[in-house]
């Protein structure tokens, strides 16, 4: 939108997604400076991080959470911003509802005060997380100053081996590039493996761009993208749909484009993964063992995780299984988990919960009877929210509790003080719930 020598470029923001956690101070800043929201009609709010996933008919018990959720409601009311609040049929994790409502479209710039905004890059949108000062800036100006990042191609070629999912593609990439391999870069995911992924799978890969250090990760839009979007509530229709398609078909990277950095991944080499440590790059195939620590950080991670080098991953018992988060809580994820759980039972003593990413996902899953499969297996069937991914609501791990989680971060204390998180795919999470230790669906009786 504006570019000048010696200054950062200023990008116009086509969609600003907001939630209760990273916005109250931004709205206060607007008021303190006598400013207003420039484009409430390009802003959408939902409540996701704090909201309970059971007992929605009761007030939020935690007064601090309740105050924050109430602040969002008041701010949206004051500035005329559409809000899908707790209990609304379109409420859900901000990165789940943008795409499912057809608000996330190719070629748009999308920002949100949340690092997993990279999810929306799956549609060929430039989408990245921002801090609260930038949220205030976007509210006031509908734009964001940005320096042009480097370009990085992550090319994944070939058929995925049986049992290997989009989550494993994401973890496999991070295994190779590390937690800062994408730092300072905008990633484009390319190659036949990425092309063959559903939109849900591409969102899972885009989602975890930030775990590899990249602020954004994109996939060129194609017929898979267009088929997903057509007919969604906010997506263009009729002649506008045709006009949009004409635009979107021009977005793909030119043949022969040169990237600042390139990574190639052979899909055949990917496996179902499990993290063993306290960052997402501390990961091994489920067939592997806890590796010998090679740094102080790894030693510290092993101590925190209560693990010994050499222990086969399959011999590690879990206390809890969490299926949910903006990484893996879409209908396809729930179907994958339910397919494993049908006719099986969660191992006695294992706590298992499934938290759909949005109320629409929940409703769609119920229409297919997935809720019945989960509850018959011994899973708790919850309402939508971020839930145990980051433990801002009452869904928490206790100190020392070990969890197989379909979320994106295994940081210390992420799911509750002293909690031990292992990142896995929905299929592995479901199989692990049944076995009571890390397992793949194939090995279940």
């Amino acid at each position, binding site marked *: 939108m504006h570019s000048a020598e010696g200054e950062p470029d200023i990008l116009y923001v086509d969609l600003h997604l907001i939630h209760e956690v990273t916005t109250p101070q931004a709205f206060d800043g607007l008021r303190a400076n006598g400013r207003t929201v420039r484009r409430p009609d390009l802003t959408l709010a939902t409540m996701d991080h704090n909201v309970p996933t059971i007992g929605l008919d009761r007030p939020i018990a935690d007064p601090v959470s309740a105050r924050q959720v109430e602040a969002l409601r008041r701010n949206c009311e004051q500035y005329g911003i559409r809000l899908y609040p707790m209990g609304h049929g379109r409420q859900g994790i901000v990165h789940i509802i943008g795409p499912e409502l057809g608000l996330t479209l190719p070629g748009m710039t999308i920002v949100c005060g949340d690092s997993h905004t990279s999810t929306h890059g799956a549609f060929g949108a430039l989408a990245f997380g921002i801090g609260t000062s930038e949220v205030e800036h976007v509210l006031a100006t509908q734009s964001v100053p940005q320096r042009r990042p480097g370009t990085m191609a992550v090319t994944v070629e070939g058929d995925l081996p049986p049992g290997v999912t989009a989550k494993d593609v994401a973890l496999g990439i991070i295994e190779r590039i590390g937690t800062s391999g994408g730092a300072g870069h905008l990633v484009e995911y390319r190659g036949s493996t990425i092309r063959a992924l559903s939109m849900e799978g591409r969102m899972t890969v885009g989602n975890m761009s930030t775990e590899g250090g*990249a602020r954004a990760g994109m996939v060129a839009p194609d017929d898979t993208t267009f088929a997903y979007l057509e007919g969604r509530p906010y997506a263009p229709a009729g002649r506008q749909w045709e006009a949009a398609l004409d635009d979107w078909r021009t977005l793909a990277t030119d043949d022969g484009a040169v990237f600042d950095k390139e990574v190639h991944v052979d899909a055949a080499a990917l496996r179902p993964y499990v993290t063993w440590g306290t960052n997402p790059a501390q990961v091994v195939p489920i067939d592997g063992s806890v590796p010998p620590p090679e740094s102080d950080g790894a030693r510290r991670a092993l101590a925190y995780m209560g693990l010994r080098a050499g222990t086969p991953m399959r011999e590690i018992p879990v206390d809890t299984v969490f299926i949910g988060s903006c990484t893996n809580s879409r209908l396809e994820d729930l179907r994958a988990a339910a397919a494993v759980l049908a006719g099986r039972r969660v191992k006695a003593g294992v706590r298992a919960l499934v938290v759909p990413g949005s109320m629409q996902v929940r409703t769609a899953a119920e229409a297919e009877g997935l809720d019945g499969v989960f509850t018959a297996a011994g899973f708790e069937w919850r309402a939508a929210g971020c839930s145990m991914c980051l433990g801002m609501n009452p869904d928490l791990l206790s100190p020392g509790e070990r969890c197989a989680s379909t979320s994106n971060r295994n940081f210390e204390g992420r799911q509750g003080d002293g909690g031990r998180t292992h990142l896995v795919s929905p299929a592995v999470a479901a199989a692990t719930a049944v076995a009571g230790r890390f397992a793949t669906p194939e090995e279940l009786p």
Partner: protein
Amino acid sequence: MEPLHTVTGTAAPLDRADVDTDQIIPSEWLKRVERAGFGEGLFSGWRAEADFVLNQPQYAGASVLIAGANFGCGSSREHAVWALMDYGFKAVVSPRFADIFLTNCTKAGLLPVQVDGEVVERLLRAVEADPRLTLTVDVAARTIAAPALGLQSPFPLDGHTQWRFLEGLDDIDLTLRHEGAIRAYEAGRAAWLPITAGPE
């Protein structure tokens, strides 16, 4: 933000890589709607360990934090920057900062000092050996110096961000100088782009 020209003071050594923002300020603290008061929550998980660097009296009053690579990775929470500043840090030194954290620093006014791993290593060892070692970070010169070590090292800070630090400039005011460009751009946006107002 407030103008910042130099930071002179002692430093605390945090010899860990991949320090994520969940450690810097745990999510429990993110429920607050205020902007102040996060210092108490800074590294609250790690501060439960008696020997954690911020529990060591010799590092009380430090204004510079020296840390390993990929500092501030993970969540976009600007609360991490607010917590560091509220605790009393004015600059953080690391071989590499995570992208969003780096931006948050330059918006809120915490000085990110990115120097080579060897320089960080040397500073860590020096500060561990002598907690009273004085460092000076000079925004105008874009250098960090430890005179007692005979060390002076440049760090990257683009001219625009440097100017904003020196003048304490508000980004929003700067962008609003281009309001005409914003309006012109808005007039030409594609008709298929969605809006969140009107009938559902």
